[in-house]
């Protein structure tokens, strides 16, 4: 069986590259095929890569605070590009300022993200969820 394919990147004008390198190493190690776009990735670049690689999920990072502005409309664009069933995950310091995570989660789910994660998330648990979500999308 092929390794499940995911696209990874840090959205917008965000340069935080450390977490991105760790996520790449972690998900690769965990058996995913990771297409890592690095930092400063536009919505279009995410979607292009997802189309090209036939990925099942896009893992969006945003650390620098502009997550709300940068992620707005990504779900709609994905649908327009025919990526109806693609999973959208978001993680990092998604909004400006220390904010209750529930509120952040609500906002990002309202924008069409399937799952939202705080910076301290346990990556093993994420890999678990991702595998599960990918399987159920397949059916």
């Amino acid at each position, binding site marked *: 069986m092929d390794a499940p394919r995911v696209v990874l990147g840090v959205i917008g004008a965000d340069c935080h590259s450390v977490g991105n390198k760790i996520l790449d190493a972690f998900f690769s190690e965990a058996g995913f095929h990771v297409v890592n776009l*690095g930092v400063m990735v536009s919505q279009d670049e995410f979607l292009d890569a997802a189309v090209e690689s036939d990925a099942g999920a896009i893992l969006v990072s945003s650390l620098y*605070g502009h997550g709300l*502005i940068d992620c707005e409309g990504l779900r709609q664009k994905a649908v327009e590009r025919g990526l109806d069933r693609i999973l959208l995950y978001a993680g990092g310091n998604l909004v400006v*300022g220390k904010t209750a995570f529930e509120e952040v989660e609500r906002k990002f789910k309202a924008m069409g993200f399937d799952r939202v994660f705080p910076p301290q998330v346990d990556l093993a648990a994420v890999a678990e969820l991702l595998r599960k979500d990918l399987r159920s999308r397949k059916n």
Partner: protein
Amino acid sequence: MTSNRLDWKDFLAQRRAVLDAWPTGRDVADIEDGLRYQRTIPEDKNFAKVMSRAKASGRTLIQPRAGVALIDDHIRLLRYLETEGTADLLPTTIDAYTRQNRYEEAARGIEKSMTAGTSLLNGFPAVNHGRDGCRKVTEAVRKPVQVRHGTPDARLLAEISLAGGFTSYEGGGISYNIPYAKKVEIGECLRNWQYVDRLAGYYEENGLAVNREPFGPLTGTLVPPFISHTIAILEGLLALEQGVKSLTLGYGQGGNVLQDLAALASLRELADAYFREAGFEDYDLTLVFHQWMGGFPEDEAQAFSVIATGAFVAAAARVEKTIVKSPHEAMGIPTKEANAAGLKATRQVLSMMADQRICADNAVIEREKDLIRREVGALMSAVRTASGDDLVQGIVRAFAGGLLDVPFAPSVFNRGKVLPVRDNEGYIRLFAKGSLPLGDDITSFHKERLQERSKAEGRPVTFQMVTDDIYAISKGKLIGRPK
């Protein structure tokens, strides 16, 4: 050695294009206007003068990071930090769109912030607010204000903010590119920063002191002192070439106290030595120490302790300035209260330690200083060889060849082959040296120290160990040991 000073005619020609990039550029078209305005600024609001005084008196000044989208909110924030927070020096942190010269997006951020009633930008969009917006800010406070950003092409921002009354400007052609950008060509970036330095130098020629501060910590993540030192010294040389006089070099806390003390002592000594060797004499060198720049613990009590250990080193090293973190660091841009809390915590440690002399005459510090001296020497001479008589070209070639390489940086022009890791006492050492031109004596020292840790932990040195170290402080440890 001032042979590479940007020609004034070329500068002025370039200037027109720079100011055309956004409508607010027009307001600073008259370069003399900025000089006239800066002449009205009193001495104790001049960053360069205040840093210089701190050096003379042996005091360590404290400065936060802070910036929000709207002018009035930003003023309220800075005022709070200078009164409640007792900040000695104020910042104006620029938002990330402005840093990428995306002024339209910044404009949208301003609008959205106005309707949201809260800042949706992660900093102050100084270009959009223009010269008069900046003057409103710098006039509203009692302390000197510095622009802190991370902008590869920072020419317009420099023009507007210097004319706007800021008396210090952070950044440099390497330190504001490699950690902050992905696809900015190094030579181009360095030349744009020569413009910034030339502008600062022009103010100096006209008797107006402008402080310049290369960004020391780079990616803030386990950067070995010699790498950031070499880059700081190179950026210092480039700035001096353009006529900069007040220079503050920086270093970010590594976490091992003795290594940090050795790093700070050697940064001062080495910079002076290289500057003098290059023929510069008439400059004023000061140091800034950044409290831990890597991932912070989420818990605020733990964050306070990371802040305090940084303050402790700043005090012991007697640096002129320390940049302060807040207990919100791991979570998001701090509220003004959290920011002031970081300042007050830092002030407490600095005051309590002010009259103490700890770690003097320490043999380990001498060992580490000597190591750093040899490491920086190796890199500097490689860059020099690559340079011929053009330092800019030398730096471009050095990055291309991996003679300079910043760990974990996003830039595609950085090789990214160097991997740091902590040794068994928490010193930051090299696990993978990439193509760094280090001699065998140096690399075998690093290797030995890492073997010690490997043995103690019963596991080989791998990328997992590096990852564990990256997480360590945020999880309450210095060293990312297994289990």
